[in-house]
């Protein structure tokens, strides 16, 4: 069975034809819709490099069947920046040097973005927990933690780590 999948990606209505419904959302995004931001590595949910939002929920795109994405909203790393202006998480990754080879970066950026939507000033243990499903083999994670702390401090300059979110930027 070959199907047509309609899915909203980064606010745009997209349509893909001749889709095998058991292929992954990741394959759909990369190979059919031309969005290579989400990366393909482990294909088993272990590495987090394909992390995207599905209906606002953080998921591994490799573990969502294309047929399950029919009619849903997907937001990928390509949809985080506002035109030429990077999302604060992306900007912080650039400034802190949290990127080396770059392969894991899109997944980590989306996962960090999700964390900061839920927690304004996460503590280090909260950051580590939130990024536990994203593997980086280059950086040793220190600069990634630094990037998330920097992005958090800019999004909520008044808060201190550990304080509960105050409902902004939901």
């Amino acid at each position, binding site marked *: *069975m070959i*199907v047509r999948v309609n899915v909203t990606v980064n606010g745009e209505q997209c349509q893909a034809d001749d889709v*095998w*419904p*058991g292929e*992954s959302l990741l394959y759909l995004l990369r190979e059919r819709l031309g969005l290579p931001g989400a990366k393909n590595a482990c*294909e*088993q*949910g*272990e590495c*987090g490099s394909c*992390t995207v939002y599905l209906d606002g*929920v*953080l*998921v*591994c795109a*490799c*573990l*969502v*069947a294309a*047929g*399950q994405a*029919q009619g849903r909203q997907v937001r990928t790393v390509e949809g985080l920046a506002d035109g030429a202006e990077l999302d604060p998480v992306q900007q912080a990754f650039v400034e802190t040097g949290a990127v080396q080879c770059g392969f894991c970066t899109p997944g980590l950026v989306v*996962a960090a973005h*999700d964390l900061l939507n839920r927690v304004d000033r996460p503590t280090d243990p909260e950051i580590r*927990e*939130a990024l*536990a*499903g*994203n593997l980086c083999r280059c950086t040793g994670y220190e600069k990634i933690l630094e990037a998330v702390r920097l992005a958090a401090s800019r999004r909520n300059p008044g808060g201190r780590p550990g304080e509960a979110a105050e409902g902004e930027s939901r």
Partner: protein
Amino acid sequence: MDFLSPTSLAEALAAKARQPEAVPIAGGTDVMVELNFDQRRPSALLDLNRVAELSEWTVAGEHIRLGATVSYTRIIDELGTRLPGLAMAARTVGSPQIRNRGSVGGNLGAASPAGDTHPVLLATDAVVEAVSVRGTRMIPASEFYLGVKRNALAADELIAAVHLPITSAPQQFAKVGTRNAMVIAVCSVALALHPEQGRVGAALGSAAPTPRRALAAEAFLSAELGDTGQWSAPRPLPGSVVTRFGELVAQAAEPIDDVRGSAAYRRHALAVLARRTLDWAWQDYLRAGHGGE
């Protein structure tokens, strides 16, 4: 391959009756791995994500009826105080991305001996609600696991929900792995105190062909606590009791050597986990000031 997208439980059951070979998929955290690696090419996938009835939980008397596709994230956020043992196990599952998609229904459907929630379901006397066009069967967790990745579901049945008793009594779960996230358990132990029944539930995972209860350990500890009046007037447990409990939990296992660990290590670690979970649970019970106060 057919892709079936029912939007109600009735539709899903009709589809499963028509095509019993259809593989149910919800969070996809197990099924998609098999598809991605060409380990499985089912003739049909049955997507349960659009079946709203399966993604709800309700209070039913003294139980929670937990819909099969309620995510681990929601169990942690919404049911942590009422189902403490299950929430503990849920916190150890995978990563945020996996916990957002994975569910107890999926754990039960896959019936992997390493599934994190199984020992909790066994220790807490959970009951699986299996449904088909023929009707509903209530299957105790202790009768649900039949073998490695085999469960008691008939070909036309789906898991609608799991029923777990609401409790304020201490429950614990612990698992061994190489890191704190993203690990398949090397072995795991769940413990539940049932003071109202004067009984202890204990079960282990990833150390036998199926998750299983440690029946001799349960019987030993239940008798020990009952005979010494500990439920109404709890005192610190003698070290000999804790040690014996650990030995009996380890003896209930039937582990193998595999890539994650040796059988000998698993037996050793199970005894450690059993002692720890008992210590933690009993400390909680003492602190709560049960009985005489």
